[in-house]
């Protein structure tokens, strides 16, 4: 009884399509059978050529600058042609509303633009000094470069830029890199 039950599970395979059951009409149809064949070969070699071309194009246009800085929705950066690659540095962003340091609010742009006096932005100076101290702790054997990246909207008044630069200089950041979109700029006109 037990042996009979066990053998019920395993048995010789039956006929299979296109082997035991030849389905001749399928063969005829695929081969054409006097009409147009329905067997369409996929052109793999041009497909691979296309993929390789695409990979090469994407690799050549690969840029890591997007990792250092993101383009903001409310901030339109100017375009310039004579530029260099971005480096890692604290980013001061200035849009129409607010001045931020690494996405932390420092001051209001409107307030800075309305005040004609050259005054330092205390919050910005303090935070940059903290960053400078942290940098010195993390890189004890390297000289401090004092680079800060300024990412400002095209319509910002230079007075605001001047105050931010003044505050950065007070904190020891005397080298300013202006973030721009690489493109035609003024030189290629």
């Amino acid at each position: 009884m037990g042996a009979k039950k066990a053998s019920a599970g395993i048995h010789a395979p039956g006929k299979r399509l296109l082997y035991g059951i030849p389905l001749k009409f399928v063969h005829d149809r695929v081969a054409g059978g006097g009409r147009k064949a329905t067997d369409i070969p996929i052109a793999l070699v041009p497909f691979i050529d296309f993929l390789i071309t695409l990979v090469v194009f994407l690799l050549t246009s690969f840029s890591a600058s997007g990792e250092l800085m993101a383009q903001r929705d409310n901030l339109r950066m100017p375009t310039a042609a004579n530029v260099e690659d971005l480096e890692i540095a604290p980013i001061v962003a200035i849009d129409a509303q607010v001045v931020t340091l690494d996405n932390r609010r420092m001051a209001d742009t409107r307030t800075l633009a309305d005040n004609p006096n050259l005054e330092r932005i205390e919050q910005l100076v303090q935070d940059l000094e903290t960053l400078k101290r942290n940098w010195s702790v993390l890189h004890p054997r390297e000289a401090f470069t004092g680079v800060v990246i300024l990412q400002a909207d095209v319509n910002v008044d230079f007075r605001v830029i001047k105050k931010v630069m003044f505050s950065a200089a007070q904190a020891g950041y005397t080298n300013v890199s202006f973030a721009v979109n690489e493109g035609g700029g003024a030189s290629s006109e």
Partner: protein
Amino acid sequence: MAGVSVGGGHGGKKSVDHEIPLIPFIDLLLCCVMFLLVTAVWNKLARIDANQQQPGREATIDQEQEDRIRLFLQVKSTGYVISGTDGTNIDIPKNGDEYDMEQLREKLRDRREQEPNRRDLIVAPEDGVIYEHVIAAMDLVVGAGYEDMSLSDGAHL
């Protein structure tokens, strides 16, 4: 799968036919394409460098530099002015509402021909000038060969 047949395989010799596994190769390429498309950055960001000529900057200008003629490009609301401590004063007024970039480029080129070894120039924008025009002027200055460009406050000139 694709195959490469170069004959042989007869007379007890080892066959030299090889199967190239195309499907895994296509899978790999598709993965590469997907990764590169996801990580692609279409707008390339870059920088224009400038030193500061401001009260907050530590004194690094030595006497020799002080004695040297200093060249300024003032960006005013009325146009550009190229001035120098040697008495140079070239006024480039606006062309309507637009800054005359072409004329500025020509004047900078002329100045460059007079002093081919000079690499420093101080850009000094005025309050009220918008940032886009300052960057356009700085771009022209660097393009004209003044790579040691500094930025100063135009109100002090």
